[in-house]
């Protein structure tokens, strides 16, 4: 079965011109959206519905650079392409060791009330992690994506490995930031947590 890159007539590359992708998405939507096939035969309508659903799924998988990397890894590893499935790789051991201090502070904060000193420390840590998360995402969308696109077939496993590690780092950072925000009471308004971590 063809993949989402094929749906948009693209090669399997991570660098994609966002504006061109959006233009193509609109063109394909005009071609397949059920609104424009109301008077077709039931079989043609079913085909349009399926094609339209596929165009939407493809756009969702490709429009965001980080989500695009996740999709590429699934493709390269030949896994089932499940929309909405969570990817939860293991966090890199070096990062875990590095985060030990923050985890301890979190444990303490959860156990008792957060005083002003602890709060300041946690806020500083959260800021640091947010910057680091932004850096990781920039690396995924930028140099790491470029590296994969330019890699020779021999270099590809290493390039893919680097992408996977960055994704794992990102997932872990997001979890810790979520935990920090929860302890700092910054998540009061949001009751929906189910999808924050994919």
């Amino acid at each position, binding site marked *: 079965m063809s993949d989402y890159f094929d749906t948009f007539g693209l090669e399997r590359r991570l660098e994609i011109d966002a504006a061109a992708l959006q233009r193509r998405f609109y063109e394909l939507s005009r071609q397949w959206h059920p*609104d424009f096939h109301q008077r077709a035969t039931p079989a043609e309508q079913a085909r349009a*519905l399926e094609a339209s659903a596929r165009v939407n799924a493809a756009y969702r998988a490709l429009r965001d650079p980080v989500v695009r990397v996740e999709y590429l890894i699934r493709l390269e590893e030949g896994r089932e392409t499940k929309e909405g*499935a969570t990817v939860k790789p293991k966090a890199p051991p070096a990062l875990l060791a590095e985060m030990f201090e923050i985890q301890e502070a979190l444990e303490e904060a959860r156990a008792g009330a957060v005083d002003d000193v602890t709060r300041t420390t946690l806020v500083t840590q959260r800021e640091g992690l947010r910057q680091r998360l932004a850096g990781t995402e920039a690396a995924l969308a930028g140099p790491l994506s470029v590296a994969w696109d330019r890699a020779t077939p021999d270099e590809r496993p290493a390039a893919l490995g680097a992408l996977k590690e960055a994704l794992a780092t990102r997932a872990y950072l997001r979890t810790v930031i979520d935990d920090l925000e929860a302890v700092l009471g910054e998540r009061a308004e949001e009751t929906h947590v189910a999808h924050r971590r994919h």
Partner: protein
Amino acid sequence: MSRIVGIDLGTTNSLVAYVDDRSGLPVVIPDADGRRLLPSVVAFTPDGVLVGDAARRQLARRPTDTVYSVKRLMGRGWDDVKDDLRHLPFRVLPAEGTVKLAVGGREVTPPEVSAIVLRALKERAEAHFGHPIDRAVVTVPAYFNDSQRQATKDAGRIAGLDVVRIVNEPTAASLAYGLHRLGQGTIAVYDLGGGTFDISILRVKDGIFEVLATNGDTHLGGDDFDRVVQLWLLEDIQSRHHAALDRDCVDLARDNEAMQELRLAAEAAKVRLSSEERTTLTLPFEGFTYHRAITRAEVERLIEPLVTRTLGPCRQALADAGLTPADIDQVVLVGGSTRVPLVRRRVQELFGKMPHSQLDPDEVVALGAAVQAQILAGGITDMLLLDVTPLSLGIETLGGIVSVLIARNTTIPTSAREMFTTSVDGQTVVDLHVVQGERELAKDCRSLARFELRGIDPMPAGMPKIEVTFLIDANGILQVQAREQRTGKAASIEVKPTYGLTEADVERMVEESFTYAEADVETRLLIEARNEADTVLTHVERALRQAGALVGDDERRRVDGAVAALRQARAGTDRDVIRERTTDLNHATEPLAERMMDAALKGALGTRRADEVMRSGGAS
């Protein structure tokens, strides 16, 4: 190809619209008397079913047989609505997968009541065009779940309408505004109606309306504003007039008619206070008259928490779209409740810009539905709406955890495939529980349906591979298909919707709806005339009991004569005579009414005369 109309099936009012062929613009279809809004109210009287304004006039008179705000019950089960019911004067009963209303000596489901409103709109359109109309685009709140959308489609079918598309109200509104003519931009549509709230964030570019995120609350609207004001008035009356109430052993809270009067008075005051700073209320009760001034500030204090509740979903939708308020180019207000000044202020504060409200917020959704209808009919080809599913769709897995298949705010149509297998040797049936919502546990989400995949060939556990495709169509409604991969044959699926009507139910209701036929025009006018006569007779009797001492002998004879004449006319079937006699009685009692009003105002305001109060108090 026959015409497709656009219908806004609202909590409070409903409308039908179409795109005019010559101008290419959407227009609302008025009824024979030029009225554009059809109140979404249905009264079940012994003489037949009334709908719209005629039914609305029955609210205080026949509170237990007159259904309003039925949209809040659509696609819902007993557990969803039981807390709401103490506020509703009509009886609601639990039923399999739905609720039933016990009104006018029979039981009806919410889709059947909505069907009566839809049928009235269908007839209005047919009268306008002079030919049958059998297809419509119907709008729903963006945050409606699968069952609520399905219930809306069912209502259409019962009314004899093929609902060719369910469209989200805020997105419909953006179509009506023709915002694509402004070129490119990001738009927030804030839609606060009678019973529901939606916020949608859209990107408009090259004629494509792409919804980025939507959020809302299907149980928050102007009805709730009315209710807090109503309860506040009730308390005030109870404290000011407790002596009279205690003497007559009246518990206003349990008096359906009085509570409906209060609700309507609260609503009217709210509406007046949208354009004025203060207003006065005068409500006659058995034994006393309640009179007071209300300021906008007082009402704002009461509704403030409700208005604030709309801001959380707005922030969530922005976050889901990856945007901040500064990224929003235009803000559009939709729904009658956005006329409330406090609502406008809060929206303006949140987004930091002046909202659009050029189009009538009551009509804009129907106009947009008409545009979408025209797109489907092939009459408009340069606009396309790409909407999203408002809630995540998932299946229940081991331990009651939800595995999300389609995340909220995914562009529709969309599909997800999942493989299932057996866990026991020789197993031939696999159960799936599909839920909708954002919580991690299935029990906290909305149960949509249980699917049974049947006819699996007996094999060792884990061997069968059943591929199930979950597809959310352009209406936001789920379709499920299953296929056994080894054999390639479609697996049979039995769907047990958790909420909603079965196919057989709907078939039966389509049949029965003909026996619910609305009273014909002549009968309807007669019923109305009689009802009005009853209302006046009741008021006069009450006034005579209350203020008999103010009536002289001559006057008494005139009034008694007019009462007797009206009673006689009412027993007949000539509605013109009934109307004449009603007018006569009104005339005969006018001097009495004035004296009573004067006395009531004196009681309330010391010794000032009524005409002084009118001048200085700024009464409307």
